[in-house]
């Protein structure tokens, strides 16, 4: 790599050709403040519109200031990141942004985690020059079942737009209007629910301010917990335990499974269960469906649709319902673990406990915002009563714990309750990209071949590359597997299948970067993709530590089939654990 020499604040630096001023400054310990710029290096996602102008620096010989995030260093450049001209400009621009931003920080859902607030603190803003009653750009608020848009707080960083269009290829959000009234919005400023939005929530995950937030259910849960007539059970998704600790100052990647169970118990949940149990159940159904389709296919049945696509991810389900309505019979009909859990909890478990369906409240803690949308879909309700009543995010759970004054870090490690709290390592890895298909392979292999797996870890299925492919040898039968995370990569795979370019037996798709560990309900990464990497590693650590690592060996799953469901793909299973899809093509 060609090197060039530059001078930053009187320090000589040698950098690779192509390095931006921002990156070069970072190398010598100068963190130039940024607002719109975001770089998720591990995931190959970058937002660099050069719009906020907070990161400007002075480059000698240049007439105006340069945005350091998007100005590439050239040989001999002399840069000042901190002189009065730069500081005054930065401060004035930040004041301008604040002058068009509501000053309700104390009661803003983003307070304390807001990048704009952090900047104001860092830059010591003490007053905002502008005329009295200066006009503010205000917009209609938009509340969807999963996320809220309060565009009064939008700073036009365009991160959401980049995520929605370039990364997810959903195309629900783009800039509209001109000048002072410009805003990022669905087409014609309609509501998200009427747009092709999949509720993946990645826009929320990257929003620096309180403009995009989750639909908050915590108050409803506090009320349900206080209601003596209700039995409130909670399920926690695999990815939550790998991230919740971050909300309490723990190092990213710290597993807090035991503390989380203890906290939920102290919050007053009657039963603390695990979505991982339902993940094992999903593998039984989805894995059996996969084997069924492959066996029929190998037997010469041409009506069989291959590849089978996983269906655990609700944003992905929304995505194909909206974008691939012609392929609705391709994905597995298995419900997601959240919904399988709800269906079992409100039938099998409620019966066991002698509780009426209406008196049970099922709460799910999810790394995801699309789960909020999923649980209120009509097909997951019985007489209007949903299988899962409320889905809250990892962040909302942390807020609940804080509201209840629980000192999370000093909690003892506790176990989940039984019977719906027991899970295997296969259930845990659902939280990371490639995990579902690895879990499915662990079970499908043994069911297909009738022999024990020679190895449990399928490293070829793991990683953070957007699209991965591998062939697994099922005792002489090669099974081709595709994996994609982020919907843009899913689109590439799907288009490849449509055109006949790819030939897969099974494909796993997760909407969020890294899978559920990078979900929109997780603690905010603020552009640090190494956090997602740390969670990723934690998930596989948890898997490795589990005594049982194959779903079909989960004793409570075995018992559930014996006592209630019969066998995978039975009539009862179909009724409770499978679903169908709808054409939701918008335009």
């Amino acid at each position, binding site marked *: 790599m060609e090197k060039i020499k530059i001078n930053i604040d009187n320090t000589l630096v040698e950098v690779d050709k192509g390095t931006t001023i921002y990156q070069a400054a970072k190398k010598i310990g100068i963190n130039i403040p940024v607002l719109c710029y975001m770089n998720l290096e591990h995931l190959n996602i970058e937002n660099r519109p050069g719009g906020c102008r907070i990161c400007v620096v002075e480059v000698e010989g240049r007439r105006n200031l340069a945005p350091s995030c998007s100005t590439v260093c050239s040989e001999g450049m002399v840069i000042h990141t901190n002189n009065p001209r730069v500081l005054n400009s930065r401060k004035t621009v930040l004041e*301008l942004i604040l002058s068009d931003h509501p000053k309700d920080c104390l009661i803003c859902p983003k307070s304390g985690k807001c990048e704009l607030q952090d900047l104001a603190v860092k830059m010591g803003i003490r007053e905002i020059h502008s005329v009295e009653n200066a006009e503010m750009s205000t917009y209609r608020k938009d509340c969807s079942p999963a996320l809220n848009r309060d565009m009064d707080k939008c700073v036009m960083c365009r991160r959401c737009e980049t995520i929605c269009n370039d990364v997810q290829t959903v195309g629900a959000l783009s800039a509209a209007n001109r000048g002072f009234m410009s805003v990022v919005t669905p087409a014609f400023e309609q509501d998200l629910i009427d747009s092709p939005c999949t509720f993946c929530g990645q826009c929320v995950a990257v929003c620096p301010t309180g403009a995009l937030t989750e639909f908050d259910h915590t108050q409803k849960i506090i009320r349900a917990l206080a209601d003596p007539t209700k039995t409130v059970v909670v399920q926690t998704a695999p990815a939550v335990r790998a991230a919740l600790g971050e909300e309490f100052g723990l190092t990213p990647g710290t597993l807090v499974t035991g503390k989380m169970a203890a906290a939920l118990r102290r919050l007053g949940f009657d039963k603390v269960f695990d979505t991982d149990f339902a993940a094992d159940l999903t593998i039984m159904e989805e894995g059996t469906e996969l084997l069924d389709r492959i066996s029929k296919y190998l037997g010469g049945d041409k009506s069989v649709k291959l590849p089978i696509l996983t269906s655990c991810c609700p944003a992905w389900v929304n995505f194909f319902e909206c974008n691939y309505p012609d392929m609705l019979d391709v994905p597995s009909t298995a419900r997601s673990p959240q919904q399988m859990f709800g269906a079992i909890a409100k039938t099998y478990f409620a019966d066991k406990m002698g509780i009426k369906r209406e008196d049970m409240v099922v709460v799910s803690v999810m790394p995801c915002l699309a789960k909020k949308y999923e649980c209120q879909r009509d097909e997951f309700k019985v007489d209007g009563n949903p299988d899962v009543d409320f889905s809250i995010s990892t962040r909302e759970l942390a807020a609940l714990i804080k509201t209840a004054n629980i000192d999370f870090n000093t909690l003892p490690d506790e176990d989940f309750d039984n019977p719906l709290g027991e899970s295997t390592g296969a259930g845990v890895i659902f939280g990371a990209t490639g995990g579902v298909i690895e879990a499915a392979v662990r079970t499908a292999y043994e069911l297909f071949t009738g022999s024990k797996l020679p190895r449990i870890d399928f490293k070829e299925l793991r990683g953070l590359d957007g699209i991965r492919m591998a062939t697994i040898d099922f005792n002489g039968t090669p099974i081709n597997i595709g994996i994609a995370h982020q919907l843009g990569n899913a689109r590439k795979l799907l288009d490849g299948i449509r055109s006949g370019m790819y030939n897969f037996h099974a494909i796993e798709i997760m909407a969020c970067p890294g899978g559920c560990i990078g979900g929109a309900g997780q603690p905010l990464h603020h552009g640090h993709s190494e956090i997602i990497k740390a969670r990723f590693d934690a998930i596989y650590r948890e898997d490795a530590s589990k005594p049982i690592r194959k779903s079909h060996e989960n004793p409570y799953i075995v018992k559930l089939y014996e006592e209630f469901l019969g066998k995978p793909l039975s009539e009862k299973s179909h009724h409770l654990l499978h679903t169908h899809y709808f054409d939701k093509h918008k335009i």
Partner: protein
Amino acid sequence: MAQYKMHILVCGGTGCRASQSEQIVENLNAELKNLGLENDAQVVTTGCFGFCEKGPIVKIIPDNTFYTQVTPEDCAEIIKEHILKGRKVARLLYEDPETQKHIEDSKHMGFYQKQLRIALRNCGFIDPENIDEYIARDGYAAFGKVLTEMDPKTAVEIMKKSGLRGRGGGGFPTGIKWEIAASNKADQKYVVCNADEGDPGAFMDRSILEGDPHTIVEAMAICGYCIGASKGLVYIRAEYPLAIKRLQVAIKQAREYGLLGEGILGTNFAFDIELRYGAGAFVCGEETALIHSMEGHRGEPTVKPPFPAESGYLGKPTNVNNVETFANVPVIYLKGADWFASIGTTKSKGTKVFALAGKINNVGLIEVPMGITLREVIYEIGGGIKDGKKFKAVQTGGPSGGCLTDKHLDTPIDFDNLIAAGSMMGSGGMIVMDEDDCMVSVAKFYLEFTVEESCGKCAPCRIGNKRLHEMLEKICNGKGTMEDLEYLKNLSRVIKDTALCGLGQTSPNPVLSTIEHFYDEYVAHVKDRVCPAGRCKALKLYTIVPEKCTGCTACTRACPVAAITGEKRQPHVIDVDKCIRCGACYDKCKFTAINIQ
């Protein structure tokens, strides 16, 4: 082409068409036929003559008689008297405002005497919808010469040597731009003509496109040959229907003549042109925003580099030049780089077209050599200030240019001098102001435009311009403070320093230049709560002079807010707090008893 003894040129520019020039053409033709003169004289609908102040214009060739403000009813007289009998119709001739004498031909009119028409050479001279007339004026000769006698490298060298700089506002040397685009290797390159003229009141590009569309076709083809592009695109605003039509006609004719398409003039050079329509966003005149708009994206600029010459339309090397820049290209190849470089100043060569407007006698389109002074433009070509008022300022460079004062009148106009004086060349707007204009209001007016036209991408332009405008409004309302003035300056400088594209980097110019040159006027608004020009409504104080008031109550009835009280036949009083300064009382009072301060 048929041979005629006389040609009657009728302006077919948008302004004159709005004043019935199409009807004039019809009537002239009818009268010619009537008198059996259709083989002696030909009526030609041309592009703009530039002298829009006195349109519709009819010019007779070969004697250059210049008739102004012609009506359809005048046509019969023109034909009978001038064409048939050779007697000029005196009442339609231009009258010199100073000497009050009729001037018989355009060559002796002050408006034209100081002009040098290169870009506008064919405007008002040829029928823009007839390729033969263009060819008769050496059209496509330059293209032929370049294509058959030069390699692209030599042709680019000539462009560099000519010293032509971009006429769209930036003033970047055209030859260097071409050289960069030529040096980038790609399977496909594009030549783009920026016809997104957006400055309010500016119509130089429109006039060229309407009056001489073939020159743009020819220049784009030359540029395509120089940089190795086979595709040309014209980004033109949809609000220019006539320009679009004439360009379409020109492209069609050029294709028919084999001047566009494959194997042009027996060489293996291929080039063709398509049109792309803009929706009229000012920011789309910025080349990166223009390219995004052409690609179907939101018209927003992006950070440069990469420049379009590296990665432009569809990610391919793209050379973007403005209409007026292109209009200079064929002449440079015909007459040579040295000839072009001999006109103008050291660093600004050739001529510049200006749209002269405001409080000036001769409103219109002019082309002058670089280096001419503002005084010559305003007083000699423009005929001085209207109604004998005093010159106050001239605003150059469109909405984001600056205001210059009488101390700049003798500054030679070129790119660098205008920037040094706190304004800019821009695309060539020139608006003259007189003593009745309030400079704070002027700055506010321009800011209103940039606030409206900001794309909203970068914070300084999106919010900063809005705040500047609000602060100016506050000052105009008599509520400003001296601290506001300081902040106004600081904010303006920061916006210039930090905005993403040319729009934001120049939008505070009207504020900064008026603060610099008319600081006293700002201070008067702030400290004395007075608008020296008497334009700011909120700073007017309406009172009744008791001695003059007869108590007729006319003002009481006219006042929409019941601010005037008093007994009948007794002097009335205006409640200052209630008064909204609408002026209704002033208009109604027959006894000049209302006093405005």
